[in-house]
């Protein structure tokens, strides 16, 4: 099920600002890439008031209560940063001709 623009720009601005706060914290729930870039913050709803509101938000909870016909609980919460990263070889994608892209060494790109 896909709900376009379920949250407004103002609500998302708040969530983004809070995401930045959470991802810079040094704690076991915040996992980092080898480069130190934050990758995933688990359980942010337990230590961030903004994300605790999101985890209890009716626009997320009510559709599932309707679907299951019963109450729901939070099994997992994670903020997945997927930050921009370089491809792992050379300059990564190399444009060879208009409209055609190739990777320098595809087997090593991940």
């Amino acid at each position, binding site marked *: 099920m896909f709900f376009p623009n379920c949250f407004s720009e103002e609500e998302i601005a708040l969530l983004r600002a809070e995401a930045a706060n959470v991802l810079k914290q040094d704690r076991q729930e915040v996992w980092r890439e080898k480069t130190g870039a934050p990758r995933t913050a688990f359980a942010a709803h337990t230590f961030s008031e903004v994300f605790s509101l999101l985890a209890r938000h009716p626009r*997320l909870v009510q559709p*599932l209560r309707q679907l299951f016909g019963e109450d729901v609980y939070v099994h997992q919460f994670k903020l997945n*940063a997927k930050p921009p990263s370089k491809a792992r070889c050379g300059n990564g994608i190399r444009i060879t001709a208009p409209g055609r892209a190739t990777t320098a060494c595809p087997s090593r790109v991940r």
Partner: protein
Amino acid sequence: MNIAVFLDAVMPINGPLFLIPKSHRQGVLDAGHDKLTTSYPLWTLDNETVARLAAQAADDVADSVDRADGVDRTDRVGIVAPAGNPGSVLMFHGNLVHASPPNITPYPRKIVYLTLCAVSNHITKFTRPEWIAHRDFTPIKPVGDDALYEYARVHRVAAE
């Protein structure tokens, strides 16, 4: 049920989530655990299983579309990558096969993944840390629909 809340625009280029439609109907599939590719352990399916599920999903799409307009199509693809503005929400069954490629663009792709589970279906084996697979099965009491606006309003006032 998994819920993805897009905090950034999710585009075809910045590591969108891939889904194989209807693959949740296969139940729980045998998966390996890849601890090498990223800093985060990944559940992985073998290529043959992914190919089989994608082919099946492609057939399902072709069936439904062909029935609708009578045109024969044989080039359907059985993997989708929903894109959308920040604030868009995607909900999908916990058994739906999904994955995402790396993000090699300068554009961030932050998504909140919230997994909500029916209380009657709570986990009974505790194999992961509490902060990854929660053990508090208390039913969620929803906040008001304006809770985020209200928080922003109160804290903006407090900051001034």
